[in-house]
């Protein structure tokens, strides 16, 4: 069983979260996750002169989820839209002084929420089309939200995914782990969850190669 021990920064942001709420008439907003999974984050934002002028979040989640919601909104405030889009899960977690590996899932949501809210802003206000295409590249993009808890990188950059094929609603993935890797199950569940959320994918086959 994992021991869940939080840093001072996490505890502070959890006890007194910043930027809680909903912006009226936001320039962009999004909700990610679902209460059924036990975690959900909504992010709303105002943009002025291409900078994030104000940003708020609501969370139905655990301590890590709330703390990352607080820190991500703090970090994003005042940044240009481009800078904010480049923010990663690792930036948030470094700012919090680290998170227990079992809590990776809950904390990724806040970053996903920020990105989705920015996309919503770009679509609504700038007329940028975020095409909902479904191909190998878009699946790879989605898998970049799956974090490998050991290093904090996503599983694509970590080069854990050795093979990926998409055809007629079916995804085939080959992923490799050290045979003693304790995060294997965690990562597999995350892959499943992320791909299941995509409309159009009916079948997921994940082959695990241990070395």
């Amino acid at each position, binding site marked *: 069983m994992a021991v*869940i021990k939080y840093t001072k920064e996490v505890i502070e942001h959890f006890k007194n979260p910043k930027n*809680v709420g*909903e912006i009226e008439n936001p320039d962009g907003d999004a909700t990610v996750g679902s*209460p*059924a999974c036990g975690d959900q984050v909504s992010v709303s934002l105002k943009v002025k002169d291409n900078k994030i002028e104000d940003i708020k979040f609501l*969370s139905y*989640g655990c*301590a890590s989820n*709330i703390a990352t919601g607080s820190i991500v909104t703090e970090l994003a405030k005042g940044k240009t839209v481009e800078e904010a889009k480049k923010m990663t899960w690792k930036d948030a977690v470094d700012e919090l002084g680290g998170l227990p590996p079992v809590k990776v899932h*809950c904390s990724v949501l806040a970053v996903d929420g920020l990105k989705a809210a920015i996309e919503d802003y770009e679509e609504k206000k700038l007329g940028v089309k975020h095409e909902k295409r479904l191909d190998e590249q878009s699946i790879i993009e989605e898998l970049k939200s799956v974090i490998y808890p050991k290093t904090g990188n996503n599983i694509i950059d970590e080069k854990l995914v050795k093979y990926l094929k998409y055809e007629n609603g079916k995804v085939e993935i080959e992923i490799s782990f050290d045979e003693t890797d304790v995060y294997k199950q965690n990562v597999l569940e995350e892959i499943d969850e992320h791909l299941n959320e995509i409309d159009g994918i009916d079948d997921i086959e994940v082959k695990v190669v241990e070395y």
Partner: protein
Amino acid sequence: MKVYLDHAATTPLLPEVLTYYSEVLRDYPGNASSLHYEGQRSRELYNWAKQKIADCINADYDEIVFTSGGTEADNIALFGYLKATKKDRPNRKKVITSTIEHEAVIETVKELGEQGYDIYFAPVDEKGIVDIEYLKDNIDDQTAICSIMYANNEVGTLQPLKEISQLCREAGCIFHTDAVQAMGKVNIDVSDIGVDMLSASAHKFYGPKGVGFLYVKKGTPLEPVFYGGGHEKGLRSGTENVPGVAAMAKALELVTEKIDEKRDLYSRWTDQILETCKQLEGVQINGDPENRTPGSMSLSFSGVNGEALMGMLSMEDIAVSTASACSSHSHRKGGSHVLSAMHCSEEFINGTIRVVTGYDSNDEQIDYFCDKLVEKVNLLRRLSNG
């Protein structure tokens, strides 16, 4: 002020038990199986402990088998009985249990399924009471053993054991109950219930961790599931844990005397906590309000993540748990199998905490808990709904 309200996960040693436990550790170094004077002193104390435990549940001395705890007792009961009878009763292949058992029984039964037994999980109603009609339909002359818990570890619901034992007797099958959550909280009389085997664990009734017992009614066939020096009539080989069983006996003796007194005290606190919940609205009380172990509450709050609530209370020095302690570190999905079986909605399952008062609780702590509960539930609701 530290406020421990997780007495279904474990209980602290009673001060008298701690003193006694340390004295025995110091003063009884002998191996109870040694024939010299040191061994015999330990043996006498060991036997005293066995008689004391037997007295507390209206059993006989030789019907008690000491174990390392509840899980080991459950394993010996189920595997041991089936092993002892598989040749003589080959047509009895059914093993029946419920959907809300502790993992110690559920996983054991699943393993029996792997080994070729036909396994059945009886459903429960929304109060967590096992479906008697299901048991009537399924307990028959093909049934080897039925195992239904005495009290549930998450919601505290007490099961209609007498009725179930009657069904088992009529069908000629063995009835086992995991009484880990009930021992020391309600009066237990094995012959009145008519149970064949019963498991218990000392750390749930203010005794030490790592010790428990299995009651085995005279004449119930059992074979060992592991082997060694033949201790405990061969059923539980391994050097006798003299300080452990002596402290367990002392603890059970003390708590058994106070069952009625504590029931009244806990019911006052339970009323106060439930009254506080009423003011919060959007609260569901899980389990059977009429028929549960004294002091235990399972509370579900709408718009609140139970893990966040537990975490916030913990930072105020209040210890409660989300579901049962065993499952609270597993992956978020799947939540509580007990609440799912009781048809609790997903939102409520994710918003659940378990609060269990105990011997070290007091009025001041309960007041403090109620204040903090209101504060944190309101905070988390603002956080999720704006």
